[in-house]
């Protein structure tokens, strides 16, 4: 086989999986584990970046195992997938470096209640983390609904292990809720796949897109709603979001960060993919999504305002800002989807950064509770800057990336101009203001208020933050700032990705270049032998 850009497509799945096996075998050699997983994720990110460039010329498709599309499983790296892959690869690499920094220096520390602080059990942490990376990549690349389900299961199984690391009482409690909800959403997704297969006779996304117009409208609507329900649980859209703020904060800081950044976005990605390529314009569903987006924003942010723990506060803002992305998707226009895609990129970076910073705050101040923190701006000015920049980006203060994403959404909402989108526009602004309130409250209490005795004592003890944790966090903050610098080209890319997705034809065309001819269901060799006998 000669080398082509298509050779790179399976790498984001294969490299982490292969490295996961290696690190599991080398569980007695933590240093080797660190080298292997860092190398694997760095290579994954590079491959994704190469795909990002290549996919701008048109989707890159690989038939796994050399079987043609409807029989074999295609991996499709179009603009949307490649963009998601690159961002998730970079973020996962930074979080891995952060957790390595934490694991090295974390042994002798004691948290606020006098218990030994988090020490990530290195032996199983690396393999599980890499499996999670493989699952996320597989979900982004899959051109087949059933393979998308498998990707989800891979990342879910890994996330179960990561969320209950160490098996403490609190994590098992939070983990049970998360596991049961996730299992239910998987079952819903699997039954949706079964019903899609029953209705269309295929689970290949491109072929389903070709055949769905012939399916009875009611059946098609049912399939769409079932898929939306399954993805809605994963993306934490309002009535299905109650599990998230409860389960995420109990995990170790890097795990929470990567979950917050990526797992819900995989759900949002799946919604964008199925809504645009498969089902196209469905005004009734879009209206329901708009209402849900508004509810997600408001309920989420009101929850955040009521919290006095930074981790829980951020989990609620996470739910709230999922609403912005759904708002973009639900407008069902190119500009709306483009804004949603840009917002996903912004939000992955910023939300992950914030959770990492909170990990640093916890280490410096000994707690994440706003009542027990204070005066950090004087004690650790660098940390204050690391918190302030992504927090303002989350709120949407110009010229940070959050502002650009929101402007895109609001402009498209105003341009669409139906009463409902105007309500959404007002709701978005209100949510942003409330986000500002919540974040500033956290800032005032943690960084500005007179420090309680405990923090003063800790600062006398001179607990310096390990460089291995600060470095990756600073890198992510810088990446968040860089999003503003490259916003022009990036937004253009998001617009092209959205246009291709909304059209849907380029996706189908890439998987079936010669119409339906390519996939007659037989590989030539086997057919010939079959006819001989």
């Amino acid at each position: 086989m000669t080398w082509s850009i298509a050779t790179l497509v399976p790498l984001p799945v294969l490299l982490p999986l292969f490295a996961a096996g290696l690190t599991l075998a080398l569980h007695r050699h933590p240093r080797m584990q660190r080298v292997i997983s860092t190398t694997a994720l760095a290579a994954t990110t590079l491959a994704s970046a190469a795909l990002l460039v290549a996919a701008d010329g048109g989707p890159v498709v690989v038939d796994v195992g050399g079987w043609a599309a409807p029989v074999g499983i295609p991996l499709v790296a179009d603009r949307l997938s490649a963009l998601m892959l690159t961002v998730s690869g970079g973020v996962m690499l930074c979080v891995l470096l952060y957790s390595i920094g934490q694991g090295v220096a974390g042994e002798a520390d004691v948290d606020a209640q006098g218990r030994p602080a988090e020490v990530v059990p290195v032996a199983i942490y690396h393999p599980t983390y890499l499996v999670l990376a493989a699952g996320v990549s597989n979900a982004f690349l899959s051109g087949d609904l059933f393979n998308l389900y498998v990707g989800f299961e891979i990342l879910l199984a890994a996330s179960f292990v990561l969320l209950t690391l160490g098996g403490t009482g609190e994590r098992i409690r939070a983990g049970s809720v998360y596991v049961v909800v996730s299992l239910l959403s998987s079952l819903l997704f699997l039954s949706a796949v079964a019903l899609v297969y029953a209705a269309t006779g295929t689970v290949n996304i491109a072929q389903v897109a070709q055949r769905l117009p012939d399916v009875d409208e009611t059946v098609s609507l049912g399939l769409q709603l079932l898929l939306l329900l399954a993805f809605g649980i994963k993306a934490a859209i309002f009535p299905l979001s109650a599990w998230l703020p409860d389960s995420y904060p109990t995990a170790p800081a890097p795990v929470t960060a990567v979950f917050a950044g990526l797992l819900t976005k995989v759900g949002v990605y799946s919604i964008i993919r199925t809504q645009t390529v498969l089902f196209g314009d469905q005004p009734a569903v879009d209206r329901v999504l708009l209402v849900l987006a508004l509810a997600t924003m408001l309920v989420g942010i009101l929850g955040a305002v009521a919290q006095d723990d930074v981790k829980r506060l951020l989990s609620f803002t996470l739910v709230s800002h999922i609403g912005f992305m759904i708002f973009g998707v639900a407008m069902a226009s190119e500009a709306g989807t483009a804004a949603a895609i840009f917002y996903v990129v912004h939000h992955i970076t910023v939300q992950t950064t914030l959770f990492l910073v909170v990990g640093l705050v916890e280490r410096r101040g000994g707690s994440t509770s706003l009542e027990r923190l204070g005066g950090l701006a004087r004690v650790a000015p660098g940390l204050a800057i690391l918190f302030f920049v992504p927090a303002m980006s989350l709120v949407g203060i110009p010229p940070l990336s959050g502002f650009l994403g929101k402007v895109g959404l609001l402009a498209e909402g105003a341009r669409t101009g139906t009463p409902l989108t105007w309500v959404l526009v007002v709701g978005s602004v209100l949510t942003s203001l409330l986000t500002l309130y919540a974040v500033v409250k956290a800032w005032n209490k943690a960084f500005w208020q007179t420090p309680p005795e405990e923090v003063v004592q800790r600062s006398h003890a001179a607990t310096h933050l390990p460089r291995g944790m600060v470095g990756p966090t600073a890198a992510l903050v810088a990446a968040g700032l860089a999003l503003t610098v490259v916003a022009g080209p990036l937004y253009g890319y998001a617009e092209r990705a959205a246009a291709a997705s909304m059209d849907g034809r380029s996706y189908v065309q890439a998987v079936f270049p010669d119409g339906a001819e390519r996939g007659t269901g037989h590989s030539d060799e086997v057919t010939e032998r079959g006819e001989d006998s």
Partner: protein
Amino acid sequence: MVMLENTPSAVLVVAIGVLVAVGVHLLLERSLTRVLLGFILIGNGVNLTLLVAGGRAGSAPIVGAAPDGQPMSDPLAQAMVLTSIVITLALTGFVLAMAYRSFQLVGHDEVADDVEDRRIARLAAANAPAFTDLDAEESGQTLDDEAAEVHDDVEADGGPGGASEGGAR
């Protein structure tokens, strides 16, 4: 190519319905082991759905092995069912381990209320005396109400006035 007949068999459809219904009932329980049983039952129901989606059974799906004119089974549905059975098995193992760990730690495997629920319940409990206090005299006071009244009196005496009471909460 001979097309398979696609009408699903009633027995399978009823079986799917029963499995999913029983599964949903178990899933709503508090104990993790029952939730797990529910998950397994619904999982089997969904697997059957996949099988039904593949059409009626025929001869083995090997090209050339089927007698002339005999329809073959749909191998794709079976491949998908196989994959999902394996996934269900792995997740079952994990949930069992988690239920056992929960049993080790707290002596049962029931899913606890989440933090927010418990906080709201605590707040409600803290607020409850102030509300029941007003009409308690007509309906006959319980011990709790009396205690609440005493508590409120002490509060009122200690504070400068009614206004501060609202502020204190």
